[in-house]
């Protein structure tokens, strides 16, 4: 019993242990950023309570549910859909249903484990802040929600990566009912229904295992030879980013964030946000809306994409290393490719200014460029250093918080300068110049990390 379950858990635990031993600094950074962010949320809770802002538990419930559905889907996809070693378990006399159900159990326990860990830390931060805790039923409701998220995440992967995507319709129905009724009894009933739906879905589990489609790309313009290494790397990276829909998702984010931030800062938040958040939102300045919008765009366009450019080389690093090419040149090719996502973020400025014509165009452009460059400066060397070693979520999370702190500091400096009436334009230009210098140093370090270092060889 539970052979696959046990083996995957042992393997994951050993991988985790090995990673901590091989890169203690990264894990220390990740852990401290994790604790920092939980305490930040705890502080935000305290802030909301002190300012008499009623927090809607429904909104919190849905945010947490949404995050855990994504995590559950991602885990199930990794442990099942794209897992090669699973072929051995699936080829034994044990039923496929049982094997895949064991994988669901792994996802289920990981989700619950994370929930218990983070909610405990959050509760500790609230106790430290002096907030009394007495909500066992709400906690139970949220816990049932996490279980539901594991089930839904699993069935989403089972049907999304199959030819019969219409089988996903019940997921939409369940989420709709949940949006109308999310008290503890409703969540419990929906959990039972979802579980039955999962059991039914597992009958078709092989439809999605190692699901691939053969797409003919004969007519595309990319099937041509390109002269020059940097240009070739640029084309290859852009093609990949386009096909993985990274570029289109950045354009969508830029338009959505620009529209949302612009609208809210111009017309207020009535009819857009839940009533509980309207008071808080009304206190936020237009510049702060711009700050949050640009921050999210930087994470999406610069941080996520820069890390992907390197971490996606995990299995293919042998290719670029055995070719007669300097790694510095490869890095410059990737640097050219990262320009494209930047252009995709520009609609943010247009949409934001459409609602706030009086606001400084110069500041917005400067802050977008400044944030974007900061993201690349930090992420390129980290991506190059951890090629083939670390999961991108670990780096993404750590770097996102680092960038938040860096941008927050520079945003505060800008506000202080404004209060004291300093001419900021010279400083703006100066900051960008310093960043350009740092950018080239960052590329150099990235090339150094990618290159094999033979320095310890004795002849």
């Amino acid at each position, binding site marked *: 019993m539970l052979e696959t379950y046990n083996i995957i858990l042992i393997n994951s635990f050993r991988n985790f242990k090995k990673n901590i031993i091989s890169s203690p600094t990264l894990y220390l950074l990740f852990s401290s950023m994790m604790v920092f962010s939980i305490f930040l949320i705890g502080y935000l809770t305290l802030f909301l309570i002190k300012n008499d802002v009623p927090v809607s538990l429904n909104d919190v419930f849905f945010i947490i549910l949404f995050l855990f559905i994504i995590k559950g889907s991602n885990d199930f996809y990794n442990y099942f859909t794209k897992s090669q070693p699973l072929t051995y378990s699936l080829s034994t006399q044990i039923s496929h249903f049982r094997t895949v159900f064991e994988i669901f159990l792994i996802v289920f326990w990981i989700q619950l484990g994370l929930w218990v860990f983070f909610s405990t830390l959050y509760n500790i931060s609230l106790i430290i802040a002096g907030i009394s805790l007495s909500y066992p039923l709400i906690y139970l409701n949220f816990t049932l929600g996490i279980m539901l998220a594991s089930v839904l995440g699993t069935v989403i992967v089972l049907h999304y990566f199959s030819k019969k995507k219409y089988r996903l319709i019940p997921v939409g129905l369940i989420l709709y009912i949940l949006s109308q009724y999310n008290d503890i009894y409703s969540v419990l009933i929906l959990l039972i229904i979802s579980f039955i739906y999962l059991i039914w879905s597992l009958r078709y589990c092989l439809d999605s295992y190692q699901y*691939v*489609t*053969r*797409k*003919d*790309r*004969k007519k595309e313009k*990319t*099937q*041509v*030879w*390109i*002269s*020059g*290494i940097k*240009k*070739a*790397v640029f*084309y*290859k990276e852009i*093609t*990949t980013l386009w*096909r*993985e829909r990274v570029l289109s998702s950045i354009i969508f984010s830029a338009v959505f964030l620009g529209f949302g931030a612009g609208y809210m800062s111009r017309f207020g938040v009535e009819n857009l946000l839940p009533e509980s958040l309207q008071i808080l939102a009304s206190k936020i300045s237009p510049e702060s809306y711009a700050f949050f919008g640009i921050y999210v765009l930087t994470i999406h366009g610069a941080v996520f994409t820069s890390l992907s450019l390197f971490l996606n080389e995990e*299995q*293919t*690093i*042998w*290719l*670029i*290393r*055995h*070719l*007669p*090419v*300097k790694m510095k040149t490869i890095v410059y090719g990737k640097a050219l490719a990262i320009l494209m996502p930047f252009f995709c973020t520009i609609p943010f400025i247009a949409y934001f200014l459409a609602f706030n014509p009086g606001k400084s165009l110069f500041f917005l452009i400067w802050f977008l460029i400044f944030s974007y460059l900061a993201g690349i400066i930090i992420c390129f060397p980290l991506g190059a250093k951890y090629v083939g070693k670390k999961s991108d979520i670990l780096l993404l999370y750590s770097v996102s918080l680092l960038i938040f702190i860096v941008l927050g500091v520079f945003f505060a400096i800008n506000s202080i300068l404004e209060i004291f009436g300093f001419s900021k334009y010279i400083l703006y230009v100066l900051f960008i110049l310093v960043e350009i210098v740092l950018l080239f140093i960052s590329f150099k370090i990235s090339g150094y990390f990618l290159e*094999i*270092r*033979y320095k*310890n*060889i*004795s*002849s």
Partner: protein
Amino acid sequence: MIAVSKLTKSYSSTVALNNVNFDFNESTVTAIMGENGAGKSTLLKICAGIINFNSGEILVDGYSIVKDSIKARKNLGYLPEMPYLYERLTGQEFLLYISSLRGLENPEIEINKLSDLLGIKRFLNNEIGSYSKGMKQKISLIAAIMHKPKNLLLDEPVWGLDPLTSKTLRIFIKERKNTTIIATHSPQLVEDVADVVYFLKQGNIISYGAVSSFIKKNGNIENAYFSEAD
């Protein structure tokens, strides 16, 4: 021509290659045989400039893989044991990308010729992510030989290939006039294409010599392998 002298490579406490010397001469097909973990793939990876080593020297056409790495890799083709490629590119895009990095002019002719020869031409416009193991092996093989390298390193070259492609590859290797190194477990492949064979065990060379002399002494390479391994 590749000269390996006093090469040592260890992974933590495990010694993969222990102070070994090899001379891979021009117009010679050299096979490396040995049990799993004997150091065959490690040797090829080091010669291709992919992984680091602890001590020794590697000269590819007289260029050090450490000091003149770019020049050394210029005339080198490498086929890895596991052909991991860019899954989102099509076979054609991938081969064009590699030829751009190698600075080849008009590579389309060679790509067409080789893909036709290896029977992969009709799949060239599909994304590599949808390829089977053998198809990836073929694309990887074209990438390794399309620039007509003087030195060719092949790690388990016929693994995953269909019989016809395997035969084509054997003929190709046999007819090559330059340095070829093959890491393999297949005694038949060694007999078919190799001039010289090295037997490795736990990172040490236990025996080496002309394939013909081993066959003369033991009947075939399989017997020679077991006899030397004992």
